[in-house]
């Protein structure tokens, strides 16, 4: 086993050692059901697709991903176990990546458990399976970027509540930077190039194109490079603040 796998295994199991895993999964599935059926009108729309579910996924993860990521480093620092972890003969980035992947894999499990929705629309109609797959890819990407942001914030503090709140705010900003509300505000006094630049860092812009079934290289590159950059930044922050 490579060191990151050792860390991954421990972290993933740690979610199930507390009620966190169960609470998270129940809330995630309950909320995704409420959103899809009551607010998204999954049945009323009369269309065999999962748009009414996917459009709420970023908002769901906005509040739930920080709950998964807040403990990643803040807890290590509060318990002092970071002193054991960082003096083991493993490269620090293995620990950073292993922890992130554990949180990400957990969120993928949550997404996988929404499969009954997929089965329902497939049974009721004849949905475009490619669009649904793209939607799931987009959802996984959003979870990934939020968890990477959350891991980074968690490395900055000892306090999980602070990590949770700050992560929500940070994710909210990257989510919202693609909203017409925000973009119109900038459009009045900025060049269209600058507005496009702001829109291009938005999670929502990239997610929406995936949700429509368009898997474009630039969207995948956006999420992948965002996650990688945050891994590097987290490694630096952990190294810099591990003893603080």
């Amino acid at each position, binding site marked *: *086993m490579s*060191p990151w796998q*050792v*860390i991954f*295994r*421990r972290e993933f*199991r*740690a979610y199930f*050692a*507390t009620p966190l895993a169960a609470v998270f999964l129940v809330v995630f599935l309950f909320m995704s059901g409420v959103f899809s059926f009551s607010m998204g009108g999954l049945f009323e729309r009369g269309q065999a697709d999962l748009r009414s579910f996917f459009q709420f996924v970023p908002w769901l993860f906005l509040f739930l991903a920080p709950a998964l990521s807040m403990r990643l480093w803040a807890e290590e620092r509060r*318990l*002092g*176990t970071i*002193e*054991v972890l*960082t*003096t*083991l*003969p*493993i*490269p620090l980035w293995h620990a950073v990546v292993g922890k992130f992947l554990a949180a990400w894999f957990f969120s993928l499990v949550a997404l996988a458990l929404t499969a009954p929705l997929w089965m329902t629309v497939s049974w009721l109609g004849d949905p475009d399976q490619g669009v649904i797959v793209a939607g799931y890819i987009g959802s996984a990407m959003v979870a990934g970027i939020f968890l990477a942001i959350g891991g980074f914030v968690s490395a900055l503090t000892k306090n999980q509540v602070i990590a949770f709140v700050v992560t929500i705010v940070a994710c909210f900003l990257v989510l919202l930077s693609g909203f017409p509300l925000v973009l119109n505000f900038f459009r009045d006094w900025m060049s269209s190039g600058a507005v496009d630049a702001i829109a291009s860092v938005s999670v929502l812009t990239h997610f929406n194109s995936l949700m429509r079934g368009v898997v474009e290289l630039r969207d995948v590159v956006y999420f992948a490079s965002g996650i990688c950059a945050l891994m590097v930044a987290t490694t630096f922050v952990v190294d810099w603040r*591990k*003893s603080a």
Partner: protein
Amino acid sequence: MRELISANNLHKSFAELHAVKGVTLQVNAGEVVGFLGPNGAGKTTTMRMLTGFLDPSQGNVLLDGFSLADDPLAAQKTFGYLPEGAPAYPEMTVRDYLQFIARARGIPRREIAGKIGEVAGRMHLRGVLDQVIETLSKGFKRRVGIAQAIIHDPPILIMDEPTDGLDPNQKHEVRELIRAMGSTKAIVLSTHILEEVEAVCTRAVVIAAGRVVFDGTPEEFELLAPASVTRNRMDYVFRQLTATAAEVTL
């Protein structure tokens, strides 16, 4: 004798505080060094620099010939470390935790169960292997911390207050264990208990206000007390050494 720990002129400054001011320490295999000093003298900071948890502001550390700054992974393979307070993941069972440490230390899969059995036997943890760490008493937690540090049988052991929180019987056992391991390893342990130094250490290093103020055998340490002092001679020497050092810095 093989020189396993070589720390040269270590300094550590935090924002306003110059916590460690030039500590030099050489430890050979077969030596058990008792690291003494008042609270805040820089013991924990020095140990953290020996393990790479803290980077020294100045100076360098060689562990079994590997530079902690240039080749941290090779250097960190050479030691086991019990940090202050014996931190461990509270939600894990003792067995899972030791398994995690063994895997992270790269012990081959087929040897792991055997190693866990071995350290559990030595640290008297057999009965609690499947218990969750947060439910254990302070003494058991401390022993889990020591077990974690010795599971890979490292040539170097660095332990911050290994007997803190143990009852007299457990203290005795841990001291016996340290003495037994001390014949082949280089061991550095910090303590507040002067008798402990006499009981297990081959060498005493006293640190006060960030500097080494004494480095010698426990016998030499005790002989610093004038003949007129007949009781608690080590306490007397400790107070003299650390009080003057504190005054110098004021």
